[in-house]
């Protein structure tokens, strides 16, 4: 039984939204964050991000495929996942998520198809038997890879990326809205919530790609492209600063206003969430990586690649911890305080096994990487010209200079 301090209503002592509801925004955040990285290359011409552009798109796609699973595990009704997609309406917040999720899934699947179409066609031409039938079906029966057809692909990718970026932002901003619109809970009910969710999604997506890129480079046996690492570290620093500022400002406003709810929120932060909020979210996951990234960004030219890789990867891992603890503190923290605003329940401890347990959460985080591995086996994630392990030629990949490494669709700029 939970221990209660102060006065709590009898129906306020249960944590109904479990670890799975923490995983839901965490996984959805990777979708939006990874797509922001790929958009920086495809839409905003950040050529130094070319080595991770395809990886980012594939990562966004892989995480999107499992993004609704935490909700289905929490509900215990797997049929409701597809149902929310095929029965759109405007009378519930989750139905709104279903529409945004379905629409974004469609746009991202189309974009992935256009970006990888040349590889699909090449593999269809090279394969025999069932593999050929599979790739031919994926290619929709058209094998046109003429320069004119590729130019059409380029235009389609630009249009889809232009729609996909607001789509990704809306998708994750909407997750924040679901919490921010619960007016009975002062820990959730703030218009800042969608913005904080969105910016922290960018942090988690960029941090994940930084780590993933280092791992992939190790696995491929080639050095990580340093301008790419520097750029990712710089963007991560920016979004981490924005996230921490917004999270701190939200608390500062509440504290300065001395609103009714501050009495209980200040107690929540300093007692129940002292470790997960103050220590992990703000210091270990916030302040320390901000300092590490500041070193990477401000002393970039003096850093040895190994030091830069180590510092940025360590900072990225801490950022991943920061975003997870932020999701935890929002979802679980909001359920520790009673709607009386005068009482708190004791900590929530997730089960190890079971449908909503820790092992299931780990499986959910690992599942997108399994999908990513399959994606790599089926279509190949490396940018064109690097699939056979040759060194990356980032410098040649400036906008308009992609031809130096082959006119692959991963090099597309609008």
């Amino acid at each position: 039984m939970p221990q209660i301090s102060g006065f709590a209503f009898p129906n306020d002592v249960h944590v109904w939204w479990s670890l799975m509801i923490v995983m839901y925004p965490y996984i959805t955040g990777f979708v939006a964050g990874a797509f922001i990285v790929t958009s920086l290359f495809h839409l905003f011409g950040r050529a130094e991000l070319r080595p991770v552009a395809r990886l980012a798109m594939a990562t966004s796609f892989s995480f999107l495929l499992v993004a609704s699973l935490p909700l289905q595990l929490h509900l215990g009704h797997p049929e409701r996942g597809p149902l929310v997609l095929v029965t759109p309406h405007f009378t519930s917040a989750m139905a709104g998520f279903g529409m945004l999720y379905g629409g974004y899934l469609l746009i991202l699947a189309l974009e992935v198809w256009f970006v990888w179409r040349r590889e699909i066609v090449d593999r269809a031409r090279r394969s025999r038997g069932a593999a050929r039938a599979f790739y031919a079906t994926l290619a929709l029966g058209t094998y046109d890879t003429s320069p004119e057809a590729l130019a059409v692909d380029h235009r389609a990718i630009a249009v889809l990326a232009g729609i996909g970026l607001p789509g990704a932002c809306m998708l994750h901003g909407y997750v924040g809205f679901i919490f921010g619109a619960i007016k009975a809970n002062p820990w959730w009910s703030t218009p800042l919530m969608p913005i904080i969710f969105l910016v922290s999604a960018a942090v988690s997506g960029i941090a994940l790609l930084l780590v993933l890129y280092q791992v992939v480079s190790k696995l491929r046996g080639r050095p990580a492209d340093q301008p790419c690492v520097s750029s990712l570290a710089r963007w991560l620093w920016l979004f981490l600063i924005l996230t921490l500022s917004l999270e701190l400002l939200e608390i500062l406003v509440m504290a300065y206003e001395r609103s009714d709810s501050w009495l209980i929120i200040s107690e929540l932060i300093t007692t129940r969430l002292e470790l997960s909020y103050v220590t992990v979210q703000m210091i270990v996951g916030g302040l320390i990586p901000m300092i590490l990234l500041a070193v990477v960004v401000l002393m970039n030219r003096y850093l040895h690649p190994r030091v830069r890789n180590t510092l940025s990867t360590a900072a990225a891992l801490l950022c991943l911890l920061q975003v997870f603890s932020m999701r935890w503190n929002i979802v679980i923290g909001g359920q520790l305080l009673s709607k009386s605003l005068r009482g708190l329940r004791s900590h929530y401890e997730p089960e190890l096994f079971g449908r909503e347990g820790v092992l299931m959460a780990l499986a959910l985080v690992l599942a997108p990487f399994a999908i990513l591995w399959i994606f790599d086996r089926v279509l190949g994630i490396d940018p064109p010209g690097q699939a056979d392990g040759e060194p990356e030629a980032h410098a040649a990949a400036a906008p308009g200079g992609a031809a130096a490494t082959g006119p692959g669709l991963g090099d597309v700029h609008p």
Partner: protein
Amino acid sequence: MEHARHVFRAALVVLVLLAGVGITRGFLVPPTYGLHGPYRWANVAEQMSARTPAHRGPAACGTCHEDELRRRAAGAHRAVSCEICHGPLLAHVAADGRVTAPQVDRSPALCARCHRKVLGRPAAFPQVVLEEHVDGPLDAGACLACHDPHAPTP
């Protein structure tokens, strides 16, 4: 346009998908959903037919107790339903027509629910401080010794 054939095929796949969603939605969403709000309207009638109402209102009581109904309608308790004191009709007359004696609530607590002196009530409404108003113990029937609940007078 010759080199955009694959785009048209992709668009066709998207259209087929959207049509699939539309058709599936047609099968999945109940016909009366959303008719009067975000719920299935047919469920209202289903729930009503699935349960036998316990309370039937004064008119149903009047089919057997016409005199009491007429006296009540002429008195100050005309807005008070019979079943408030006599209990639900279903406990008195079962669905198969079997009649049992109703459990009548004669407690002063029931009368006090409306007539206890409360500052917030309109001054013209008859209300008393029960302990001062009743000379004797507040047992069941203490109020009914002086007041006829079917046609109460001050």
